[in-house]
């Protein structure tokens, strides 16, 4: 089994090596992606680095050619839609597609899936999670994998993988709501997933032109820290109403964040217990501090899915 976890500025990848009949260990590595802001540059750099990662896997000539991949959640658009219960499947699909078409300016080049979410109450509406990702990005990844004769078996969103890790690591108490924050470059919170008994809400933060969430239209870099997140929570936004939050980063040189997270209900996500349980080894140089280790949360979540 092979895993590739893609973030905005790195690829973390791992493979399982069979030492004997019943003994297997896995190793995890990391490559940086040097990209500018535009999506084309990301796509080109990703293609190049994927090629070298896949060549590395191929060199090992594994018998198991399956690959699980996670892509950064900020490349996607995610919606929680409610529709009337009792519709046929094809009608549900049409309604959800129509909703997405009305929510996004251009849906032609998007690949969209809708997932049913179980209701917390017995309301007459059904909830669906709709995920749209650029079709080109999906095709670039799949075609690269297929070219090297690997078999893509799973494509997940990074933050959902981190959520899987969290739900494996900590048992959630009844009626509790937790949040997972992904902190990107320059202390910017990128994505937030709130979950309790299932997924409650997802927020993606865009700081460039701040078109997504008006409350975040602040260009002061001082505000891009966890205090800012805490301030947001204190403002009682219903979407941000949760009991604990866990932070992980895709940019580990983020000392400022580390100093801010220290209490019982604000923690840095730690993938190490799960990884050692699965006999997964990380290069020593990455085991610097808690925040440095948290960058492996997404791949750890991906590993727990198998």
């Amino acid at each position, binding site marked *: 089994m092979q895993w590739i976890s893609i973030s905005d500025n790195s690829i973390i990848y791992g493979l399982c090596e069979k030492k004997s009949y019943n003994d297997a260990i896995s190793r995890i590595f990391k490559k940086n992606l040097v990209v500018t802001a535009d999506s084309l540059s990301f796509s080109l750099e990703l293609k190049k680095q994927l090629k070298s990662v896949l060549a590395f896997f*191929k060199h090992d000539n594994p018998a198991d050619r399956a690959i699980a991949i996670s892509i950064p959640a900020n490349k996607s658009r995610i919606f929680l839609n409610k529709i009337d219960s009792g519709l046929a499947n094809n009608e549900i699909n049409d309604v959800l597609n129509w909703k997405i078409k009305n929510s996004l300016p251009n849906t032609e080049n998007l690949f969209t899936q809708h997932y049913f*979410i179980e209701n917390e109450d017995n309301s007459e509406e059904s909830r669906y999670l709709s995920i749209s990702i650029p079709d080109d990005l*999906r095709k670039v990844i799949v075609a690269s994998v297929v070219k090297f004769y690997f078999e893509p078996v799973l494509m997940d969103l990074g933050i959902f993988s981190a959520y899987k890790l969290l739900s494996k690591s900590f048992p959630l108490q009844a009626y509790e709501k937790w949040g997972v924050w992904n902190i990107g470059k320059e202390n910017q919170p990128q994505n937030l997933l709130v979950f309790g008994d299932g997924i409650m809400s997802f927020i993606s933060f865009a700081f460039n032109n701040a078109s997504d969430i008006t409350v975040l239209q602040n260009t002061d870099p001082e505000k891009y820290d966890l205090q800012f997140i805490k301030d947001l929570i204190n403002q009682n936004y219903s979407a941000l109403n949760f009991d604990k939050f866990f932070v992980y980063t895709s940019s580990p040189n983020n000392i400022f964040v580390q100093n801010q997270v220290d209490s019982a209900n604000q923690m840095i996500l730690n993938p190490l217990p799960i990884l050692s349980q699965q006999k997964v080894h990380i290069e020593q140089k990455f085991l610097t501090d808690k925040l440095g280790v948290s960058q492996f949360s997404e791949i750890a979540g991906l590993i727990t899915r198998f």
Partner: protein
Amino acid sequence: MLRINLLNNKGLQDEDSFIDLLKIDSSAEQPPIISSEVSKENKQKFDEIKKNLDEKSSSKQKRKKKKKKKNVKPKSVFFVAFILALATAILYLYFFTDVPEIIIEKMSNIKAAVNETKSDSISNITENEIVNEINVGQSIADQIFQQSKDLSLISGVLELLPENVQIIDFNLKNDNLSIICIVQDIISGENIKFFIYNHNNSFKPELFYIEKTEDAKNYQITSLTKILKNNINPNEYKYLNDKQLSGFIASTGENLGLEIEPLTISKRDQTVARQGFVYVSGSKINIINFCRELVSQKINVSYNDLEIKSGEATSGSSIIELKIGITIFPQK
């Protein structure tokens, strides 16, 4: 528990759907090359994908043939056109005997090249020996490496030109890079000058000046620079045959949203070095990325000369036309 898998089909997912293998559309890329290391099971799956692609391409070809049949013109028109073409060809050969004859791969559209990498045929015209210009003493890998470096430098210069640049002359021939262009501000000129003068190991500037244009509104940059040869480590290169090469160039261009003409190759025989031309047009940034993508792949191609022109602007963004003369080397 919600189990997301973006490899499944579009639309509404079954509650239990988890892994829905290989229901994926790999049409963005060429079908993979068969390798001996692959298990039988994998081969079967890839064969299926390949078969699907072949079916698509054959149906496309059928449609194309039907279209062709509809466009039948009177024989007299063909006859006049043939006479004119023949006369032009004779005059051309008479006056420019050292110029290679150009034969164009008859790929009726780029999509066909990208998806199928099947050139229908290569016109069979007299094949002249055109290898004279190629320095046989120098190893092929050296040439590829050096000329890739040239293309990389060119894209560096091109990147410094502003969007609204008016290119009068921009070409590379026999290691001489000449640039004449008009820009609106002096800073762009200074940037290029800084770039060229600070690449001591790559450029030998012979002439560089920035002057105001006659209407005193803009600035004209005139530059003549020699690109220096470095000591080169011979590098390995990957061999692509004509189909693969045209597919690679076309898909690179198309992925970047460039307008790209079918690859022009001088002759059919793949055992000797041949010349060819690549024509693309598009936005500056995409042209730069196209050059970089070509350079990043060490294949059996060297980039000999290059010409850039300002194309027709469309809806506010300027278009650049790029022509690259290439040499295609045979298999080692």
